[in-house]
């Protein structure tokens, strides 16, 4: 049976991670680590393709989710002994999942033992159509990025370390999307966080990279605290952490309408975890800094896969969110506001990778907007297309960096069309998809989200979805503009560029090159990257252009067939249908955005300066990212540091001095009686004599008093 193969999906990369780690020990084996990593990820992709056939919905038949058990992880069972079969059976029927065993009791009578699960979190995988979609994204994009990275990272000192971490990431991410209980999901969740930390801080001798890694880790911990509280509350509420059991309990609760405060707390806490991982307001600050990592990492972890885990979490646990009337609208509002917020910041940044980072935050906001208004198919579809085009954009940005020796500043490059012809058109494809240009991938997915939003607003006479939809449209305009601002700035105009200070985006000081010719070539001029790196980009570009057109029905069927199907679907058949209208509107918006970008950044660059001069204050605020980092610094970091300083002083002055005083006591005593030891033999003799006499006197007095009483 193919499905049993699924249990190997996480474990192949896990083994590969160990092998790559071992490769790090021998210089000759370093190159092998890339091969191991690529083969492992391709193998998982192959397994995904093999098993996906069993989960493709045919017609209206729902696909049964399958659970594949790997091993018992945590299982705590309680047992109750009954003397009669009837009472045992009735008890067993009250507690689902319990088992009854008959055995001979101590007194020879038959007795019946009912064992019921108290807390079970097995290492088992839940496979349904949603999981398959996520696995396609993770392993597919992962394999392409790994191939690209094999070329991009060549000659880097930590080559094997890099691929080891990437394999570990694939292990964690597949565990995350396949987990059948929240605890295992949390394991994967923390695993990807760890890999993210390791890879952001990959250039560990660069202080900014180390700081960024720490920032990502700390900000994610805030979200994860919420996630953990959510899991605890869910266990208290549902007595289980197994996803499908929770969902069936929720469905029952929804039907009889008996909700309590925990039902509201759970989604909000889980949401906090999702917002931390998916870089939404107010926890988005780590993602732009995470661009300190190598570019393939930015593409794979910080654009295509890990950051979408939050969207996946909400979609996977959708019924838990639906039960609270406030949860999903909150998700939608936060998503929409983040989308607009990040898009405006992206307008005025100059660092290519940071622009894409803000763009990622913005697009993740879109996904949350879709999920929040119950267009889970739209959210997951956007996740799917976004994985293609954002990975493509990051990797082409990596190619530009590679060509310009680490140069990332938009102001220091122009007119590279001739130098980087392939990269130019690959990035063009990515930008088109990001801008939602008609008939590219982003166009279809954005349209699905916006149409669902407006349909909900109009059909249910709600203001909120309409407002959020308008925000979404505005964001689409900005997205088209900043995507092409970047492209026109890099590739059009007069040819002019400055090389960066780094080699291949590697550590500047450790230029351990495998071949000296590479370095010579580098020093000379900007150059197109090798075909090892461009081939995976071509695949991604094809995906970015066609995945929307080819995939939107498939994704919709896949998502609807899973647990993510909304219990109260938006009234599809009644009410207005906006898909057609929305396509026209968002297509026009996208074209307008692209044309504006072409005017300001290609045809008439001077106009940009004049335009910016009229809005000096706005531009300054946007360039400084709304001063959010400064705000957090002033509101959170500094007060914490002050508190830390106070505690440090308390520790030093109060606790330490107490300990020191205790230590000083014996020394003081020693100082006090030291003079008695003056080395005179007869002095000691007198001391002994006095001691002896006093003991004798005391004994005698004791005896005397004993006689008297």
């Amino acid at each position, binding site marked *: 049976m193919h499905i049993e193969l699924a249990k190997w999906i996480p474990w192949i990369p896990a083994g590969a991670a160990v092998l790559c780690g071992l490769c790090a020990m021998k210089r000759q084996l370093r190159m092998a680590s890339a091969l191991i990593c690529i083969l492992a990820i391709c193998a998982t992709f192959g397994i995904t393709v093999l098993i996906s056939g069993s989960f493709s919905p045919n017609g209206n038949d729902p696909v049964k989710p399958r659970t594949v058990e790997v091993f018992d992880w945590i299982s705590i069972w309680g047992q109750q002994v009954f003397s009669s079969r009837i009472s045992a059976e009735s008890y067993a029927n009250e507690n689902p999942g319990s088992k009854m065993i008959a055995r001979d009791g101590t007194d020879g009578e038959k007795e019946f033992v009912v064992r019921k699960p108290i807390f079970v979190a097995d290492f088992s995988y839940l496979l349904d159509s949603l999981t398959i979609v996520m696995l396609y994204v993770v392993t597919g994009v992962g394999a392409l990025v790994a191939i690209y990275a094999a070329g991009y990272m060549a000659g880097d000192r930590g080559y094997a370390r890099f691929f080891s971490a990437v394999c570990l990431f694939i292990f964690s991410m597949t565990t995350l999307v396949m987990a059948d209980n929240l605890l295992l999901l949390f394991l994967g969740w923390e695993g990807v966080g760890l890999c993210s930390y390791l890879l952001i801080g990959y250039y560990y001798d660069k202080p900014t990279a180390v700081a960024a890694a720490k920032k990502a880790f700390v900000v994610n911990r805030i979200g994860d605290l919420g996630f953990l509280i959510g899991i605890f509350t869910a266990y208290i509420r549902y007595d289980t952490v197994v996803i499908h059991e929770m969902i069936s309990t929720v469905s029952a609760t929804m039907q009889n309408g008996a909700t309590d405060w925990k039902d509201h707390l759970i989604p909000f806490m889980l949401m906090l975890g999702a917002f931390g991982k998916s870089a939404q307001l107010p926890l988005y600050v780590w993602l732009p800094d995470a661009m300190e990592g190598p570019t393939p990492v930015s593409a794979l972890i910080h654009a295509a896969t890990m950051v979408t885990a939050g969207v996946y979490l909400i979609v996977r646990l959708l019924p838990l969110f639906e039960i609270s009337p406030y949860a999903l609208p909150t998700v939608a509002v936060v998503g929409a506001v983040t989308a607009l917020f990040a898009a405006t910041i992206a307008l005025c940044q100059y660092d290519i990778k940071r622009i894409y980072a803000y763009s990622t935050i913005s697009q993740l906001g879109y996904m949350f907007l879709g999920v929040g208004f119950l267009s889970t198919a739209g959210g997951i579809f956007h996740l799917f297309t976004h994985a293609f085009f954002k990975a493509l954009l990051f990797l082409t940005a990596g190619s530009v960096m590679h060509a310009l020796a680490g140069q990332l500043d938009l102001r220091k490059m122009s007119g590279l069309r001739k130098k980087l012809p392939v990269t130019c058109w690959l990035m063009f494809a990515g930008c088109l998809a990001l801008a939602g240009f008609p008939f590219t991938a982003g166009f279809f997915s954005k349209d699905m989200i916006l149409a669902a939003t407006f349909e909900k607003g109009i059909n249910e006479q709600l203001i909120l979805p309409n407002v959020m939809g308008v925000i979404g449209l505005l964001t689409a305009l900005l997205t088209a503009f900043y995507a092409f601002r970047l492209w026109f700035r890099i590739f059009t105009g007069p040819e002019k560029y400055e090389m960066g200070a780094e080699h291949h985006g590697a550590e500047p000081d450790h230029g351990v090159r495998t071949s000296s010719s590479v370095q010579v070539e580098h020093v000379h001029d900007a150059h197109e990257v090798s075909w090892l790196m461009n081939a995976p980009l071509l695949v991604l570009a094809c995906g970015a252009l066609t995945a929307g057109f080819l995939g939107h029905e498939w994704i919709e069927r896949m998502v609807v067939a899973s647990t993510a199907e909304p219990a109260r679907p938006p009234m599809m058949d009644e009410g207005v249908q906006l898909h057609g209208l929305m396509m026209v509107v968002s297509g026009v918006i996208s074209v307008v955005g692209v044309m504006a970008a072409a005017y300001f950044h290609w045809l008439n660059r001077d106009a940009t300066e004049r335009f910016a001069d009229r809005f000096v204050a706005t531009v300054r605020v946007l360039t400084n990212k709304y001063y959010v980092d400064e705000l957090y610094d002033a509101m959170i970091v500094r007060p914490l540091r002050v508190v830390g300083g106070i505690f440090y002083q308390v520790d030093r002055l109060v606790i330490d001095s107490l300990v020191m005083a205790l230590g000083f006591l014996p020394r003081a005593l020693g100082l006090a009686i030291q003079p008695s*030891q*003056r*080395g*005179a*033999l*007869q002095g000691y*003799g*007198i001391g002994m*004599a006095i001691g002896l006499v006093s003991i004798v006197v005391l004994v005698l007095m004791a005896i005397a008093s004993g006689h008297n009483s």
Partner: protein
Amino acid sequence: MVVSELHSLVLSHFLFTGAVLFIFGLVGFLCRRNLIMMFLCTEMMFQGVVITLVGFSRFHGNLTGQTFVIFVLTVAAAEAALALGLVVLLFRRKRTLDPEAWGELQG
């Protein structure tokens, strides 16, 4: 003390003799400035204790105390040999028997 028993030795005599010897030894130990004399004084204190033990042995009518005395004397002999040897060595170092000369050995 009972008058009728004055003619014979009783426990008190032994204890008194022992105490006197002990006190003489102690005073000698504290006052003399000669290591050999001080050492002899400690021996005198020893003998005071030994006489006490013999007295108690006689008082109780068993031989435990006297047996103990034999052991103590043996040990004291060995210790005397050792201590006198040490005193000779100390004298060779400083050419004096004054214990104050070794005051620098203070703790």
